[in-house]
């Protein structure tokens, strides 16, 4: 496993290998093939940040470039999934969920349940999520809790390139609708990624760092920030265990509970808004199922309850920082 790959290239490789393996896998999205401003080369853009670059040349019959029409092509992808294709629809930013939410939460999520278990909807909705990109309030949100709230959807939010390739492969092979959220500020992050195809099952959290004093439960970009906090805290003699949830629905609460039973302290770190979030959900489950193990009140590290600011200075303050995470861990140690 000597080859490193960025998260962006890992997404491309998973799409490439799955489209090659299975011709029913198709892609739909804005600018995934051509795109305004291209110099005549069909494949000039490959999506807003170039994730699907090179794929149109290989799979011209499996890539559909769409107009700016999320409600239309996401609906078409959902319909195609019920008729035997495995569409991967790319929503540039999860912030655009609003205009196609009916197709996702009232249609795709419900088919299996409303057609007597006979309908399958193997559709993947990919979208960039998260802040720190100086992209303002309508292109920076972490809307993970909204999709996690809906039964019938599976929700993935990976933290590194290895997991991204394996989880996206699993998402495409999965027979249920999957919302696959890619943090745009992780696209450049690299790690060892096997060249061969592989799938990582859903509902399996990853303990990315072991430690006996405090458990941090998080996902997405916040995994990296939590690891930075853990490095700082180690110098103070505090050993932090970091649990990367990887998939938010299904969620692996067993691994969370086991860790909290060992450490007795929990810090939930979530880049989503603080009300009704992954952090509140995990906190509530731990308070119910592992209350007797807790040695200190549960801490949550989240942004404030406000839209993501456009001002760079304010955006930096908005997103939870390693310092804030470390402070929350210290607070649980002092209790």
């Amino acid at each position, binding site marked *: *496993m*000597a080859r490193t790959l960025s998260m962006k290239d890992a997404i491309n490789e998973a799409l490439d290998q799955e489209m090659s393996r299975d011709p029913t896998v198709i892609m739909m999205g804005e600018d995934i093939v051509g795109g305004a401003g291209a110099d005549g080369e069909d494949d000039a853009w490959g999506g807003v940040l170039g994730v699907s670059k090179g794929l149109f040349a290989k799979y011209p019959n499996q890539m559909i470039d769409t107009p700016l029409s999320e409600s239309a092509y996401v609906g078409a992808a959902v319909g195609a999934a019920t008729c035997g294709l495995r569409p991967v629809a790319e929503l540039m930013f999860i912030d655009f969920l609003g205009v196609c939410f009916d197709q996702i939460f009232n249609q795709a999520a419900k088919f299996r349940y409303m057609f007597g278990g006979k309908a399958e909807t193997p559709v993947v909705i990919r979208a960039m999520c998260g802040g720190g990109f100086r992209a303002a309030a309508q292109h920076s949100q972490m809307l993970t809790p909204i999709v996690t709230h809906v039964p019938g959807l599976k929700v993935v939010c990976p933290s590194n390139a290895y997991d991204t390739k394996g989880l996206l492969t699993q998402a495409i092979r999965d027979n249920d609708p999957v919302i696959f959220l890619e943090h745009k500020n992780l696209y450049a992050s690299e790690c060892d990624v*096997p060249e*061969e*195809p*592989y*799938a990582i*099952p859903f509902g399996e959290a990853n303990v990315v760092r072991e430690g006996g004093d405090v458990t941090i439960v998080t996902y997405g970009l916040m995994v990296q920030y939590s690891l930075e906090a853990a490095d700082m805290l180690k110098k103070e003699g505090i050993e932090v265990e970091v649990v990367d949830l990887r998939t938010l629905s299904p969620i692996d609460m067993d691994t969370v509970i086991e860790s909290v039973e060992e450490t007795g302290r929990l810090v939930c770190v979530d880049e989503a808004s603080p009300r009704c979030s992954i952090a509140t959900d995990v906190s509530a489950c731990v308070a119910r199922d592992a209350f007797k193990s807790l040695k200190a009140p549960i801490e949550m590290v989240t942004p404030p309850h406000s839209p993501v600011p456009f001002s760079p200075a304010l955006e930096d303050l908005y997103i939870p920082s390693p310092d804030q995470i470390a402070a929350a861990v210290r607070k649980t140690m002092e209790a």
Partner: protein
Amino acid sequence: MSDQITPILMPKWGLSMRVGTLAAWLVEAGTEITPGDEIMDVETDKIANVVEAADGGLLRRCVGQAGEVYPVQALLGVIAPSSVSDAEIDAYVDAFEMPEIEEEEDTGPTHEFAELDIGKIRYTERSGEGVPVLLIHGFGGDLDNWLFNIDAIAERAPVYALDLPGHGQSVKAVTNPNLETMVNSVIQLMDHLKLTKMHLVGHSMGGLVAAQTAIANPSRVASVSLICSAGLGDAINSEYIDGFVAAANRKELKPKLKHLFADESLVNRSMVDDLLKYKRLDGVQTFLEALKNNLFSNGKQAVNLIAGLDALDCPQQVIWGEADAIIPQAHANSITGATVTVVANAGHMVQMEESSRVNELLKDML
């Protein structure tokens, strides 16, 4: 005088190792050490092991501090005769260029790939003089099972290690996952490398492969060393084999891997993660199930090569870990005329747990 000074360096175990922690010195400055002496404990995120002295002499200076992290090839100690002054040693230490932590692969050993009839086979190579050695790993393993052996043996002869079909980074789409396919991969690799004759070393199922290769192609084999080998009796720990194949996550896999070592603490998160990553590659699960059914179904070994080995006219040795929980140590004495060594304080992965002893035995065979 610096030609009389010999450095002790941070070793490099496997391609991915960039840094190691000097856990402890096992000797003090002022000690006369001989090659093979255990001089320090080193830990990586993958594994912990004892480092033996490659050179002998008077240990003048412990430069590395216990508990600290050092890059591969960093200066940890200095060996020099007492005729070399302290000032000269100071000067040597000051002048030593501490290597940077490597970001990418350096000029050191790399993995190669051979496109054979059977498919793509990964191997690694250490050059040298004489009849080369081929190291063959066991069921579910890969060439990194020889992490602590390959460089030591390379002091005596050229060494190759491969990933068998279905394993490591070799081809996963294997038409016939059976012993013949494994043997073919060895012969095809030898042909590809234009090596007419080799010393074969096999661990566990790799021993079965080495033995069958020798029996079927006696002219291509100079000697056979079988480590905790399959093919020498009926019994095998089906709980391990079945459990390893069935394990779908870390929680299921970790307790199975503990069967492999006398010291169970060697099974760490990184080892479990690496094996899980392998098992999750497309095709591996199907392959392992088929191979298990062909070779080790229902707790019995399907192939017994004792008669073939008895008839084989080349030097043979058998090495076993005393605490082997996978294949009974009683199988060690199956072959007439073979040299047999049972190594204490070691389980099935004896070549990792007691690497120095195993390296000596393997070198003695050359």
